[in-house]
């Protein structure tokens, strides 16, 4: 696995969505690649930054419920 491949897998790795074989291959690459380790760290930090804001940004519409009197 080269760096381009590894970077393409990093988000799925953090999401826990990689197959075991992919995960092992990625971890093997990460163990010897400082650049990809740094990218992983950056993405993990952004993940924390983003997730906290995303939850608070959910849209709600109280008025919408009144439309459903037709049902």
């Amino acid at each position, binding site marked *: 696995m080269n760096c381009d491949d590894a970077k*393409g*897998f*990093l*988000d*799925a790795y953090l*999401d826990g*969505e990689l197959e075991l074989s992919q995960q092992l291959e990625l971890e093997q690459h990460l163990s010897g690649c400082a650049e990809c380790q740094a990218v992983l760290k950056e*993405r993990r930090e*952004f*993940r924390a930054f*983003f*997730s906290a*804001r*995303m*939850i*608070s*940004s*959910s*849209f*709600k*519409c109280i*008025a*919408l*419920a009144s*439309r*459903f009197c037709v*049902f």
Partner: protein
Amino acid sequence: MGQELPRFEELFLPHLDAAYNLARWIVEKDQDAQDVVQEAYARAFKSFAGFRGVNPRAWLLTIVRNTAYNWIQKHLREDNLIPFDEKIHAVPVSESRSESSYEKRKQQLQEAMTRLPPDFREVLVLYEFEGWSYKEMASVLNVPIGTVMSRLSRARRRLHEAISEVQDLETEDEL
């Protein structure tokens, strides 16, 4: 049909907020999102007799998604709108700002999200709000899992950039 109504309401009305949230992130405007959700529920009710799924929320959100994209296509034709282009549709930072940092951060994220194409916003919402797996998204979006993986990854990268842009613009305004 009369017997179906209580069951339909029981299964699907609890997901009204999720339906609105997804529609809002795809079509952006409040009134448009309300229209999309109402139409989606009407479609869901018409198809309800054939519903055999074990996940009414996912089934409903699939209909909401399809309805939202149909809505976009319909209004592109009716209004002769220009398809989404990040260079064209980049939204200027709002001049009105909340005093609270919480509201400010929330506003920054919402503004950054509007800079993304709808298909990027969609995967972010389905993953982050709805907690769908890559496999579930692949099934609903009718694309390979590898496409979900790359789309979600690109969406996050683009969002990261967009948030930085929004923050930079706000910093410039404050100087």
